[in-house]
């Protein structure tokens, strides 16, 4: 493998129902930083059926080039045709870096493709930067420059590791949603659009989709919320979440929750914050009746302001809270809602 042949930062531009997923824009934002450090270009790989028209959006978020694979086999996500298309692009174009969202699609596609093109893959990265490997020069080992350094949490958020892929290309990472920053879209930006047809020959690996069942989601995605009012087991009952919903409504926020609440069946999984739920970083995160297990903290500690209310003064949530209030949520939250209502009315 001649590593020098591999150039450019490539992003898998995930789309679902012909709508580009937010993670694709986040990856483009990060790819732009990395490409600048490497003095190279950002390429988006757009796969689907009837999706050519989406290329401009990717340009607005930072893609210099868009490679489009448009084929009916790619209508709904299936591992094999997507893996075939992505691996074919990699073999043809030889990118230096390939970024994929750590979504339910990307965490299936990434490993399959990395195994096919025989390279390493680092999962669920939260920090990506260009640097040296090894980090410090060591006698008897060549220090390589311009390597992708991929940082990720492990052990449920207890440790973090920085990983490199120094001797194989491309360097591949899946990246946690909600962590990287999109750029402000550049209106009217255009990318070079190139169509690519790897040819599709269905075999046993092309599984058959018999049905698609969408869950009815009537709430804002908690990853997009600016204010989250999050409840834990300490809220006491599903009915008592009304207190949190009222507070969220006054602030124009959204309710989320801890794993304990999902496990108890009080709230659906898509509202869960944490290692096995979603990573959020709102402007304000209220942690109400949440003890703050490390797995939960891993999903919310990047929030701008963390306000915790808990009756247990020793709860670990106070170790990450900017403002911690030891007290009874049942008494504080309703009064807080009323006080904020009055404040907001007065300021209008």
């Amino acid at each position, binding site marked *: 493998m001649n590593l020098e042949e591999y150039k450019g930062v490539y992003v898998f531009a995930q789309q679902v129902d012909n709508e580009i997923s937010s993670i694709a824009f986040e990856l483009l934002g990060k790819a732009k930083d990395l490409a600048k450090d490497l003095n190279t270009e950002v390429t988006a790989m757009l796969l689907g059926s009837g999706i050519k028209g989406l290329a401009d959006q990717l340009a607005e978020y930072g893609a210099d080039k868009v490679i489009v694979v448009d084929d009916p086999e790619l209508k*709904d*996500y299936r*591992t*094999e045709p997507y*893996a075939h298309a992505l691996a074919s692009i990699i073999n043809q174009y030889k990118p230096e870096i390939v970024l994929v969202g750590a979504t*339910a699609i990307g*965490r299936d596609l990434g*490993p*399959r493709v*990395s*195994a096919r093109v*025989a390279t*390493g*893959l680092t*999962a*669920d990265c939260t920090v990506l930067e260009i640097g040296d490997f090894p*980090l410090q020069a060591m006698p008897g080992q060549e220090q390589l420059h311009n390597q992708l*350094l991929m940082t990720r*949490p492990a*052990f*449920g*958020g*207890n*440790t973090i*590791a*920085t*990983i490199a*892929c120094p001797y194989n290309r491309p360097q591949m990472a899946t990246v946690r949603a909600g962590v990287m920053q999109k750029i402000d879209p550049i209106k009217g930006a255009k990318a070079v659009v190139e169509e690519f047809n790897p040819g599709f020959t269905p075999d*046993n*690996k092309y*599984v058959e*989709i*018999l049905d698609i*069942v969408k*869950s009815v*989601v009537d709430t804002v995605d908690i990853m997009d919320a600016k204010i989250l009012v999050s409840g834990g087991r300490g809220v006491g009952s599903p009915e008592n979440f009304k207190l949190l919903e009222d507070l969220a409504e006054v*602030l124009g926020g959204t309710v989320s929750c801890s794993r304990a609440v999902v496990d108890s069946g009080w709230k659906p999984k*898509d509202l869960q914050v944490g*290692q096995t739920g979603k990573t959020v970083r709102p*402007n304000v995160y209220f942690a109400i009746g949440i003890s703050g297990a*490390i797995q939960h903290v891993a999903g919310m*500690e990047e929030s701008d*302001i963390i*306000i915790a*209310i808990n009756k247990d003064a020793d709860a670990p949530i*106070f*170790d*990450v*809270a*900017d*403002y*911690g*209030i*030891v*007290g009874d949520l049942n008494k504080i939250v309703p*009064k807080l809602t009323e*006080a*904020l209502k009055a*404040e*907001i009315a007065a300021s209008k």
Partner: protein
Amino acid sequence: MKIVVCVKQVPDTKGGVKFNPDGTLDRGAMLTIMNPDDKAGLEAALRLKDQYGAEVTVVTMGLPKAEEVLREAMAMGADKGVLVTDRVLGGADTWATSTTLAGAIRNLDYDLIITGRQAIDGDTAQVGPQISEHLNIPVISYAQDIKIEGDSVIVERQYEDRYHVVKAKMPCLITALSELNEPRYMTPGGIFDAYKADITVWGRADLKDVDDANLGLKGSPTKIAKASDKVRKGAGEKVTLDPDEAVSYIVDKLKVKHVI
């Protein structure tokens, strides 16, 4: 029908994580468990066995001590256990791990391979799909329901906002979510039999169609540059106030920060 289930012995992070004085994980001081998603995968296999009849073989890669999870699996109802252990396999990343497990599974007959979605120590979710690629069979990840229909499996494949009902011809690999089921307990008779049962132990030489260059630490394309405890943002203020004072305190902070 023959089913292979891959399981991993992992530290139990629920009981808290213990560190050595130098900051590395003290694995010896932590209890180990069968990885939860793998246990759900095993339970799914045992339910298929109950329903359709099947031979369930459990495969693990790890230190000799990992034999414990095989015996646990057999006490739950698995028929055979295979431990893949060898010094040269240590330090493997997901590429080298999946290469190793695929090399072991090539020695076995299988219609279905079930792995957990991910292990609670690494959280990568990569080994299952990578095994399927090495074996050139279809993969269905994130299974929340599994049924058999003739020579095919019908699986509910979970996504963030939907699930797909997917049909694949066997042989096929499925990765299981812990939401899939509630794993059964070991039975006293099962425990008794499992502790007498023979475990097959394979080393490097027993792996089929595997290149040394793809095994262990040396064969791992990803290299750890640095590992450390997570540095957390320090604690801010902590106050104990009566409800009215607490409300004024929060409202003040929200004003200062221009939230309201």
